[in-house]
């Protein structure tokens, strides 16, 4: 796990979430995680390939997800319908696309896949054993955890 990869993802997520919710985003303490990721309810996963291989996960509870989707669309969502899910996928794509742009302009060579969104209780995300760094972002609508696991090829 290279720490150099983590900061741009966290900073991009913080910046883009702040615009999306029109509010202040406070980053919590960084922690290391090597276990499967238990979903809080709504999880967006973006694959990373290139000089580093891994994934970035954005995880939040359903209420936070609905409130963020509502703010981004300017209309309330009571359920995670297709538009709400699409909005959150697009948000994940913007956060990772922005981070990869920063990294690649700094001399790295990474690509990201389109986001995949999971919604449901009792979902656990597991995969290749990767050490992940997790940063909780406190938004006005609830917490969004940014979980970055990228290993150098």
């Amino acid at each position, binding site marked *: 796990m290279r720490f150099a990869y983590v900061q741009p993802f966290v900073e991009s997520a913080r910046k*883009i979430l702040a*615009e*999306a919710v029109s509010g202040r985003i406070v980053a919590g303490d960084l922690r290391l995680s090597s276990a499967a990721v238990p979903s809080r309810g709504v999880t967006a996963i973006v694959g990373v390939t290139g000089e580093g291989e891994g994934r970035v996960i954005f995880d939040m509870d359903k209420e936070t997800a609905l409130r963020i989707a509502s703010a*981004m*669309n300017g209309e309330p969502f009571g359920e995670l319908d*297709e*538009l709400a899910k*699409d*909005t959150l*996928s*697009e948000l994940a*794509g*913007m956060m*990772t*696309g*922005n981070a*990869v*742009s*920063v990294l*690649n*302009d700094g001399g790295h060579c990474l690509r*990201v896949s*389109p986001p995949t969104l999971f919604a449901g209780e009792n979902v656990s995300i597991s995969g290749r054993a990767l050490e992940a760094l997790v940063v909780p972002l406190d938004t006005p609508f609830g917490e969004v955890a940014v979980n970055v696991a990228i290993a150098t090829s």
Partner: protein
Amino acid sequence: MRYGGRRPMARSLRSFRFLVVDDSEFARRNMEKMLIAIGGQAAGFASNGREAINQYRKLQPDIVLMDITMPEMEGIEAVEEILAEDELAKIVMVSSISYQDMVKRALACGAKHFLAKPVKREQVASVVDFVLGEN
């Protein structure tokens, strides 16, 4: 088929017709709201490059806002095909992946400008004004 020779002058920014191409419904709606707010009229929408080419032929919009990463056919390939048919097509690439090489690639294929997501209304207004104003 070529559409060269059309549009001898740029339309007024107040009456431009736009085509938004993005596989995200949220992104299409968001861009539509911003373009309408600056005086545009929706000519149509497409969710991949293949649809964009068909819609362009049918609708003949004044400007196209085109995402890059899409299923079936990506934005850059669609731009090349549209420009092969209409060298006067005015296409702005819109993408969250905006590192320098990607921007260069988009402009090299003939796009007139590049907007990095998340887009802001002022940026959209400025770019649309610039692109429709150039002749």
